[in-house]
């Protein structure tokens, strides 16, 4: 059995156990979404008719008053009847279809302290926007974990994920850093999220600053390379914030990219273990030192919540337009 969910003139089938967001994205109907954890509110929509079960929607994100006036979180709500909804401005346009993905581990590589690159081969190519993420099912647990793609859109057959070990972590210590081996099958769904560049035709080639904390670098790798492919000479400042030099990775890759793109500056910043070869402190402070005015820039932030908050403040302090500040809103499992 399933219910009909109507959004922006599109009618999609939604199983009683399925969230409205999942049903729409699987049908290729766009709904704003970011965290898929019920915490960011991006997917809030108005239920016009029908009825939904709010599931695990937190009261912080969806208050009782909002529920009473018919608001719901698409990423948490499940239909109890045929339901019509109205989302924000962009809801209802077509988007990359959300799919279940069966993947095979192609490579597992230790790239830095407690950090791995995992390459997952896809049976069929995946259409996504660089910067989006996938959810992996942790075998045998029913748990799911979100990992950003470091790929560009044409790298659609092998997904590149950066994973940091969380001591005692269900997904990392026990699996991705435990028994995971080349050839293993990994169940995933994707693509998800709204952390990606505007469409090429709306991208004016303006300067960009990207700040990644730890493995929060992953989506920025896909975004920066895509941005430079569109406008090879644009100014791109990519900051990688980590604790110590042992946490840095892909330095050669960025050196090579910078050699091909004089507008690219890659800046590693060490917060805890000083090293004369690198800048010290926080990457958001390094940005404030380096850039006098952020007017006309776009800013991209992925990493621990405190870093992202500091980044938003730093960007606004340099008067970057808030419309052009982008942040990954899911909290990475390995954020610390």
């Amino acid at each position, binding site marked *: 059995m399933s219910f009909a969910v109507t959004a922006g003139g599109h009618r999609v089938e939604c199983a009683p156990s399925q969230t409205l967001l999942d049903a729409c994205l699987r049908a290729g109907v766009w709904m704003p979404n970011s965290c898929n954890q019920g915490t960011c509110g991006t997917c809030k929509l108005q239920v016009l008719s029908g009825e939904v079960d709010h599931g695990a929607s937190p009261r912080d994100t969806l208050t009782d008053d909002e529920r009473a006036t018919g608001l719901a979180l698409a990423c948490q709500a499940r239909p109890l009847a045929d339901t019509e909804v109205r989302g924000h401005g962009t809801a209802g346009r077509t988007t990359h279809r959300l799919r279940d993905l069966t993947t095979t581990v192609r490579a597992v590589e230790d790239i830095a302290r407690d950090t791995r690159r995992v390459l997952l081969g896809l049976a069929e190519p995946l259409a996504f926007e660089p910067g989006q993420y996938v959810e992996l099912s942790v075998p045998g647990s029913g748990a799911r974990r979100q990992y950003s793609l470091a790929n560009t859109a044409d790298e659609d057959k092998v997904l590149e994920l950066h994973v940091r070990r969380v001591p005692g972590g269900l997904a990392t210590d026990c699996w991705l850093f435990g028994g995971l081996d080349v050839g293993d099958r990994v169940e995933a769904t994707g693509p998800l999220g709204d952390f990606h560049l505007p469409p090429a035709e709306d991208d004016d080639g303006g300067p960009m600053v990207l700040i990644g904390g730890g493995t929060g670098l992953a989506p920025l790798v896909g975004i920066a390379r895509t941005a430079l492919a569109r406008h090879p000479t644009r100014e791109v400042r990519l900051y990688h914030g980590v604790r110590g030099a042992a946490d840095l990775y892909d330095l050669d890759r960025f050196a090579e990219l910078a050699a091909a793109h004089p507008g690219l500056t890659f800046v590693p910043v060490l917060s805890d273990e000083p090293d004369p070869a690198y800048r010290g402190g926080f990457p958001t402070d390094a940005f404030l030192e380096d850039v006098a005015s952020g007017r006309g820039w776009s800013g991209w932030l992925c990493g621990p919540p405190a870093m992202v908050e500091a980044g938003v403040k730093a960007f606004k*302090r340099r008067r970057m337009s*808030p419309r052009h*500040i982008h942040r990954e809103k899911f909290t990475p499992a390995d954020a610390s």
Partner: protein
Amino acid sequence: MTTTERPDLSWLDTVTMSELERDPYTTYERLRAEAPLAYVPVLGSYVASTTEVCREVATSPDFEAVITPAGGRTFGHPAIIGVNGDIHADLRSMVEPALQPAEVDRWIDDLVRPIARRYLEQFEDDGHAELVAQYCEPVSVRSLGDLLGLQDVGSDKLREWFAKLNRSFTNAAMDENGEFANPEGFAEGDAAKAEIRAIVDPLIDRWIVEPDDSAISHWLHDGMPPGQTRDREYIYPTIYVYLLGAMQEPGHGMASTLVGLFSRPEQLEEVVDDPALIPRAISEGLRWTSPIWSATARISTKPVTIAGVDLPAGTPVMLSYGSANHDTGQYEAPSTYDLHRPPLPHLAFGAGNHACAGIYFANHVMRIALEELFEAIPNLERDTREGVDFWGWGFRGPTSLHVTWEV
């Protein structure tokens, strides 16, 4: 209710106009609690102060519009806010076409955004500004001025006019004989009107023979038989309504919203980060400090009983929407600005068939102005070395708002 049960309202005898202008809330809070419909001697009028009584009077079939005495002295007859029946219907049909949502949507962005940008460019790199005089009021008057056809009248002149008309319109104090207590208070409004006539009369002369797309040109011609125009004496009172309230209030609304947001830094930050919240921030700003605080009135057309008070036919009642919007029966902690309070309807735009005709236009002017402000200066802070003073009983808003930011 018999007279013996009436609360003792003798404390009202000592309330003065300047007290009300400085802080109407203390007096009206007591009125809401003790007598939601009360005769206030200094105003020489009954006053409705709660949500329920304001709404009841504004929408009752037993009341019709009347202009307050000081308002009538300032605007003359027939001002749209004080007339009824066919004349009111004609004046509404005259002003409404330009203010219809579908019509406003067609040009509002192209009208207001460049104006907002132009004023921002003058100070956005200074690192400090006084936003009431440098931004809120100029964007408000320029947007409406251009819509009306007053492109050649400078923004400072339009600001001067609304300020003078405001003080005249709200020169409401009455003496015990029912005469104006300060007749000399109308002089500056009279001077402003003389100047307005000197500037607008030649424009009207031209529009009569050369109609264009400006609102006042349409007021003259729309719905009239070919070759005829509305008489200018007939439309001037409504031009004054515009040159006061419609010019002034979007500026008040923006400035009050900003002061409210500055009182909740985390909410300001949310709104700056997500401009989709601006309309909600404005709606709460208008509830928190209603720009048209107490400027319009209704008059009973037959004997009625309101809030337990018997009123004979022909009794005027002033509508204190700014007080109604602080009604604790409706709003928790009403004197606190709170973006996240339940979005209940408020009375900042009035109610009934005389409710504001410019709601859609005004909301968009304020929205676009704040969007551009936060876009250009996302690191705006209130300059805490300067205080913020609110002024006004009839019309209310901050008199100045000093801000700073890092450049």
